């Protein structure tokens, strides 16, 4: 009784729109929650042990699969920052976009964002290089600001610092850990600078276009296996349904649907015959209204593209 009463109240609230149905119905299974929790803990441990990219993965998980206790935006930014501090170019890329979007308490940090993206591309992230090519076009950021950001990023990376800890919430202990890679970061920056110099291209924007072309093409040409299966299955399901229908019709022509379609067809042709009989007098009766609507349509058309009643009448009469 109590349960029924509760359900009645809940359904009334949902029905009246006071409570979104999703809040009542959206429940995850216990297993799903447990599995997510285990994955989360494993990666958290790896991060604490000093695996460079683990904080980045943690943040990505928290961002895209908030099944359990969704982390706050500040927490996500902090994880990305720690991962970026270790020289993870993907984390630099995501962090750069966070700042560019002005999320959390980070509005008006366009320059810092561009520096982060530039750092990611200098450390070999093709996606960051690609985004930097497109940001001036899509967001209207000036090319001069982009050049400026690149110079700052190169300078910082040459000093072995992937991120500016004067404003970012870095972890002071992280640089003492064995996995920390300041030498590698500065080496990569030097290689980038050298290659740029050798390419003979003056503007860094032009140089970016030469980077990672093969990787991008490889990405775009490969459909993920999951997607392939989905496409294949969708096609297969539709094909099977069609074949089953055809088979049923072939086996039993009196099958209900077949008979129904026949009836529909017969009705249609008999209706068309009858309508044809009255064609002349019907169009005469409707002429005034058709002319009126054509006049309204022509009001919005160019004088050279007007339509005439006679033309329309011919088309109407041509119809089966």
């Amino acid at each position, binding site marked *: *009784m109590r349960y029924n009463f509760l359900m009645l109240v809940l359904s*009334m609230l949902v029905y009246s729109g006071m409570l979104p149905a999703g809040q009542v119905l959206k429940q995850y299974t216990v297993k799903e929650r447990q599995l997510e929790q285990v994955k989360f803990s494993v990666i958290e441990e790896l991060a604490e042990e000093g695996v460079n990219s683990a904080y980045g993965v943690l943040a990505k998980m928290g*961002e*895209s699969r908030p099944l359990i206790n969704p982390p706050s935006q500040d927490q996500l930014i902090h994880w990305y920052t720690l991962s970026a501090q270790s020289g993870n170019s993907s984390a630099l*890329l*995501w962090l750069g*976009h*966070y700042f560019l*979007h002005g*999320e959390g308490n980070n509005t008006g940090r366009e320059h810092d964002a561009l520096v982060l993206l530039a750092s990611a591309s200098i450390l070999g992230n093709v*996606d960051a290089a*690609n*985004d930097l090519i*497109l*940001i*001036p*076009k*899509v*967001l*209207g950021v000036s090319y001069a600001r982009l050049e400026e950001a690149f110079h700052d990023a190169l300078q910082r990376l040459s000093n072995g610092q992937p991120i500016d800890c004067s404003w970012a919430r870095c972890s002071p202990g992280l640089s003492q850990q064995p996995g920390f890679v300041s030498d590698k970061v500065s080496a990569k920056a030097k290689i980038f600078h050298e290659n740029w110099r050798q390419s003979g291209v003056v503007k860094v924007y032009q140089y970016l276009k030469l980077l990672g*072309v093969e990787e*991008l*093409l490889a*990405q*775009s*040409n490969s*459909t993920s296996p999951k997607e392939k299966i989905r*496409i294949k299955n*969708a*096609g297969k399901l*539709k094909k099977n*349904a069609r074949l089953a229908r055809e088979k049923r019709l072939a086996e039993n022509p009196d099958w209900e649907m077949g008979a129904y379609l026949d009836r529909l067809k017969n*009705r*249609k042709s008999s*209706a068309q015959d*009858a*309508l044809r009989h*009255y064609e002349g007098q*019907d169009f005469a*009766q*409707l002429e005034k*209204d*058709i002319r009126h*609507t*054509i006049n*309204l*349509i*022509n*009001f*919005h*058309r*160019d004088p050279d*593209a007007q*339509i005439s009643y006679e033309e*329309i009448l011919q*088309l*109407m009469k*041509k*119809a*089966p």
Partner: protein
Amino acid sequence: MIALESVVKPKCLANNNKIKVFTGVFVVVIMLFVVSSVSAQQTNHADKLKTMLSDYRDMDWSQYTVEAVRRRIPKKMYGSDVESLLSARLYFIGSQNIQEMQEVWQAQGIARPKTIVVANGVYSVADLHRLIDDDSVIEKTKDDTYLFRQPVYVTSTASLVISDATIRLSLLHGVFLVADGQLFIADAVITSWDERAGNEGEREEVPANELLLYGRQTPRPYILMNEGSQIYMANSRVSGLGYKGKRGTFGLSISKRPFVVTHRLHGYIRARAKPAGWLIGNTFTNNFFGFYSNQAEDVILLGNVYYDNVIYNIDPHDYSERLIIARNLTYNARQAHGIIISREVNNSTIAENLSFSNKGSGIMLDRNCSNTLVYSNLTIGNEGDGIAVFESDNNFVVDNITARNVRNGIYVRNSDYINTKNNFIFRNGNAGAETAVVDIDKLETRNFKLDPYHKSASALYEGNQFDSNLHAAMTAKNKGVVTVKNNKFYNSGPIFFGGELAPFAENLWHQNNGATPASEASHIPRQPVSP
């Protein structure tokens, strides 16, 4: 034991009585709530119709002319940020669409497909030709005729003006035009182009029942307006475009994707406003769809001619809002309807259109569209119904002429609160108006989570004129509810009231003529039943 019973039992009884009284009160409250909300809905309906009609009638039509669009076209062109970039870089303009086009690019031996990216400025087609300066990419074939062999992407920082020009989008090179910015098109022709045949290219033969299956057609050129974009188009012709692809590849489409949480460039674009546009006095023919929209807002389609498009002539879809589809001519949609709005396209107006000889219905409201005003249209000689309202509650069908359609003049299916007023319903092949509940649970093509429906239908028919409909003036099936008021009936078929209405013909006749007042209660639909 006895003592215990005497102590406990009265308490239990008292509790039971309390529960019964409480439940009774609760049920009465709920009933009052339902009845008051229904009567409020009826009052709201009349007010809403009044407002919608006066809004439409008060429109200043002089600002929606070809000349008005021409005046909007920017006169000053500037900018030089036009370059050809690898298409693979543009992951955010629709990766699935790019993926589909790979088929054409590979067939043409284009290993590194590129797209012309137009940014930071206002450009004419001549500007693009000059800035790209490569005839293998954009070729000027005649005066003001340009053949594009690479797709074009207009970013949100740019506008493209196509005026007094003919644009041919190469079929063989897999060309499309996608815009996040503004597109101005006036006095122009945009077609697909088969260089070998020297025409817009034959469509491949695909069986009718496979036309809407994904992956069955070779991609063709298309125009797609994305999030935040705007299109102003007048006195132009668009033909030969579109195919069944994943998103907005149907011809000319205005489309916003669902917002996703992502922090690369998708995020900026998908967070932008819904796209909008004016299409005035244009002609659309031989496209897969004449017009398609998804989550568009305030789009105005006026004075356009749509004919011979493969599936639909006009098809605003998914959550588009406040559209005005008025004074258009749509005929001969080869597979389906002249004008269809589908999946929660709300608060829109379909008015003063002439829709005839389409393979499906003249006008259709489908899948939970509400607050639509279907006003003063002419639907004549369509192979389906004149005006069909499918699974869509709270709509108004007013002052239309629906004649000589092969099926019904007006067909209301699984829809409640349909207000049909002052229509002239003349010589339709089946009934003048049919109100029916149809079980579509087994419809293979329908996703009922996305498009739920209820098994009830109800309509108010007031002040309509039913004349010479072949089977009956009015019919109802499977417990469709009708209320009739001041309608005029002439010559219709063998009987005025057919189907389930036949036994109640006398009552309906009296109700219609006011002998017994049209009971508002008879218009109250049953509670919806989910499939």
